[in-house]
């Protein structure tokens, strides 16, 4: 490789990494948090069979899972302004990523909630706990434990999916690669570079995930 390319890579690396650390990862974390809150609420509503809300949740899941993330992003950022609803681009990215992943994670959480035996809930009532106490002390902790691998995978997906925000001009890591490439025309080197940074992020997260799993297993496992 030529010295020019090495120079470009060396120049762009700190810049991309900075955007990765200050935009990509925080956006992924914030979207994941939003998704988690949505997922838990939606899963609880379905688990508790709350009349009207239950149907709204099914509709939400159907809608999200049946449309591409990219289309959702365009619809919210470019489409909604036509209806007089404007979002800042970062806000749009956060909302779309959160609501999108939330639908998938809701299904994960619902499965995890349902995997906790009904008998434990009855035992909870019999020792004088109420529904909320049973959920917070018994059912939810076990559901989170069951869902942990799937939820961590969602977080890792989220890190990669934030790159789609580049299409609505959010200044994140991939957008930086595009901008720099627009100046120097070294797409192979720059996109390889940015891919390696995503790979680094995801590898570290996978490693953390495994560490947590080991810790959880040591705490009694608790899952049959």
């Amino acid at each position: 490789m030529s010295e020019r390319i090495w120079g470009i890579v060396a120049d762009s690396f700190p810049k991309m990494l900075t955007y990765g650390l200050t935009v990509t990862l925080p956006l992924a974390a914030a979207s994941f948090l939003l998704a988690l809150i949505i997922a838990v609420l939606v899963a609880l509503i379905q688990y508790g069979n709350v009349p009207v809300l239950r149907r709204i949740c099914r509709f939400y899941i159907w809608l999200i899972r049946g449309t591409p993330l990219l289309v959702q992003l365009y619809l919210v950022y470019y489409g909604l302004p036509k209806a007089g609803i404007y979002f800042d681009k970062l806000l749009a990215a956060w909302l779309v990523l959160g609501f999108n992943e939330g639908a998938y994670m809701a299904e994960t959480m619902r499965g995890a909630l349902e995997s906790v035996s009904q008998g434990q809930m009855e035992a909870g009532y019999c020792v004088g706990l109420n529904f909320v106490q049973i959920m917070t002390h018994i059912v939810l902790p076990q559901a989170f434990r069951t869902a942990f691998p799937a939820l961590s995978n969602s977080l890792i997906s989220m890190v990669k999916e934030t790159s789609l925000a580049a299409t609505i001009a959010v200044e994140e890591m991939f957008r930086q690669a595009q901008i720099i490439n627009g100046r120097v025309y070294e797409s192979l080197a720059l996109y390889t570079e940015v891919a390696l940074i995503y790979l680094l992020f995801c590898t570290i997260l996978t490693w953390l995930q495994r560490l947590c799993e080991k810790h959880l297993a040591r705490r009694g496992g608790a899952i049959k």
Partner: protein
Amino acid sequence: MILSAHNIRKRFADLDVLKGIDLEMQQGDVVAILGPSGSGKTTLLRCLNFLERADEGILTMDGADIDLHRATHREIVRVRRKTAFVFQNYNLFQNKTVLQNVTLGLTVGARMRRDEAEATALEMLRKVGMADRLKHYPSQLSGGQQQRVAIARALATKPEIIYFDEPTSALDPELIGEVLSVMRDLAVEGMTMLVVTHEMDFARNVSSSILFMDGGEVIERAPSRQFFEQPREARSQEFIRSILQR
């Protein structure tokens, strides 16, 4: 009288499971409920504790009448505070240790202080011989050990009566004894117990009387010895003959 129930009825769809059950328990009674599979034994216990909502029936505890069909949330809580339930498959909280399984109802449910709750839990776990496994999780225990923890959990809430639904049916034969011996100790101490069981030894030698059910009805209620030696009803006689043949 510690408990009496009158005319408990329950249907599932078009199946009449309980057809008007009457029941009376005195302080210290140990009553074994016997009967063929599907006769409604489990459903009866579940209705008494509101795990199942009866279609009809009056429960009287401590002089207060409670409509089993229309009971309010408050009444249900009051009844459950006086009773405890031991399940066939233990139903221990899988994410809690042995000690936490017993204290949870006290600290969270009854808002007891932690040290007080732990002292109570320890006392109960000692009673069932599980005080040396406080930090274990249910998945690390044998079935018999889990059921003994479940009994300690039931005792910890200081119930006036404990319902047992086939507490030894899920156990390997060699583990049944340890659970039955705990239950025998409780009976000797004067604990009031209503026990659905297939253990004829327990029914004959530990329980004070038998409630024999068939087809959603109480066919016969008699002192244990009398039930086994001189059953009054034809269906009781048939039942006893069938278990002797096994």
